[in-house]
């Protein structure tokens, strides 16, 4: 208990003995964490967007009017056997017409004048589990054209392709920026603690002289580093919580199709990750710094 008190007081003293440096490193860590939080949120949003678009990826196989139902069902069974395919729906000529009528009813600019004849084709709608498989599945299905059942294959995976590329680029770029910020934060922490160590060098010398263990010497500084990290995390979290609402609204109105609202679970995960990273960087940086001093 006595020791805990000693460690805590020494750490707090170290922090306030050099307030400018402590606050500078708190600020740097806070900035790094803010970037980290933004990166996590963006990544999460993009993943959600990819998920939504992926679930919408569909191939349509338009069927010849004179195709035999048994052949169509046979084809459907074969398509369903592909692990990349999540679902195949058979849409008859009548259902296609009913859909069109439905759509027209909601849009005053479209009017269906005559429904006596049905020009629409029956189709098989293929839903894919993953957008990446779209090109392969499409190619395979195109082989069926001209064999008496399939008249055309329609796909539109470019949107997903682009989104996947954006996600990859952003993930990579984000990670690179984050790595740089991490190094900067670590560097600042190491220097802050080095100053704290320097201020206490006589005390450390005597501590080692009378037989204090390395860990006893280290703990106050590690705690000071963690304190800096935690304060940075508090600042970053505050900024995130304040900014989250407006930013989210802006994003939702900007890209309406994406369901960009994060659940509370995600928010807690985010805050948890931010604090975990903060303590790791603060404590780790301090450890590096003291280790260098003790090794002398």
């Amino acid at each position: 208990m006595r020791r805990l008190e000693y460690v805590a007081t020494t750490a707090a003293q170290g922090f306030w003995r050099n307030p400018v440096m402590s606050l500078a490193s708190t600020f740097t860590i806070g900035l790094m964490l803010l970037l980290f939080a933004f990166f996590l949120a963006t990544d999460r949003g993009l993943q959600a967007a990819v998920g939504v678009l992926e679930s919408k990826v569909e191939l349509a196989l338009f069927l010849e009017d004179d195709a035999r139902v048994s052949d169509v069902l046979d084809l459907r069974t074969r398509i369903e056997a592909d692990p990349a395919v999540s679902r195949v729906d058979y849409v008859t000529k009548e259902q296609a017409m009913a859909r069109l009528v439905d759509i027209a009813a909601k849009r005053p600019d479209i009017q269906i004048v005559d429904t006596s004849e049905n020009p629409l084709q029956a189709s098989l709608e293929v839903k894919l589990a993953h957008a990446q498989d779209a090109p392969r599945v499409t190619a395979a299905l195109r082989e069926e054209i001209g064999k008496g059942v399939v008249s055309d294959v329609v796909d539109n995976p470019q949107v997903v392709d682009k989104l996947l590329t954006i996600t990859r680029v952003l993930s990579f770029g984000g990670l690179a920026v984050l790595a740089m910020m991490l190094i900067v934060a670590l560097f600042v922490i190491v220097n802050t603690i080095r100053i704290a160590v320097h201020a206490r060098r006589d005390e450390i010398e005597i501590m080692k002289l009378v037989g204090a263990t390395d860990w006893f010497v280290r703990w106050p500084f590690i705690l000071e580093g963690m304190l800096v990290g935690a304060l940075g995390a508090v600042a970053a979290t505050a900024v995130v919580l304040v900014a989250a609402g407006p930013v989210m609204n802006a994003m939702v109105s900007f890209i309406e199709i994406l369901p960009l609202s994060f659940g509370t679970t995600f928010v807690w995960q985010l805050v948890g990750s931010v604090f975990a990273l903060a303590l790791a960087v603060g404590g780790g940086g301090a450890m590096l710094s003291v280790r260098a001093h003790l090794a002398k």
Partner: protein
Amino acid sequence: MKRSAVPKLRRRVGVVFQDFKLLPRKTVAENVGFALLVTGHSGEEAREETDRALALVGLSPRRGHFPDQLSGGEKQRTAIARALVSRPKILIADEPTGNLDPVTSWEIIKLLVRVNELGTTLVMATHNAEIVNALRRRVVHLDHGMVVRDEREGQYAA
């Protein structure tokens, strides 16, 4: 020897230096008790042992003073109390009188002799011929790191 074994060993060896190595922001009692507090002893234990050590070196009345308020001899007595507070088997004194005037030096030497009589082995490095000659104890003469002489009742030889 493993690095982690060093602290344990240091607790059993008291050390005193020419420049005292006291912490200026701590009082006499705090400087002495510090040695116990940083090696995992309780506050109560530290207080008791500090009282004992300060009584031994005759500094009990000055316990609340800061190093700046002490004379050279008092500073060195504080340092000796700190070295003795953990009841070491050996006390190493590196030029303990190097910064002190002759009269004060003798006070410190008398104190160290008393510590020795109470059962602590004393190893002292010094260039003070007068002290060496007066004590008539075992003298090990080092020259450039080599032992050149070791006598049971030695004299100083320049």
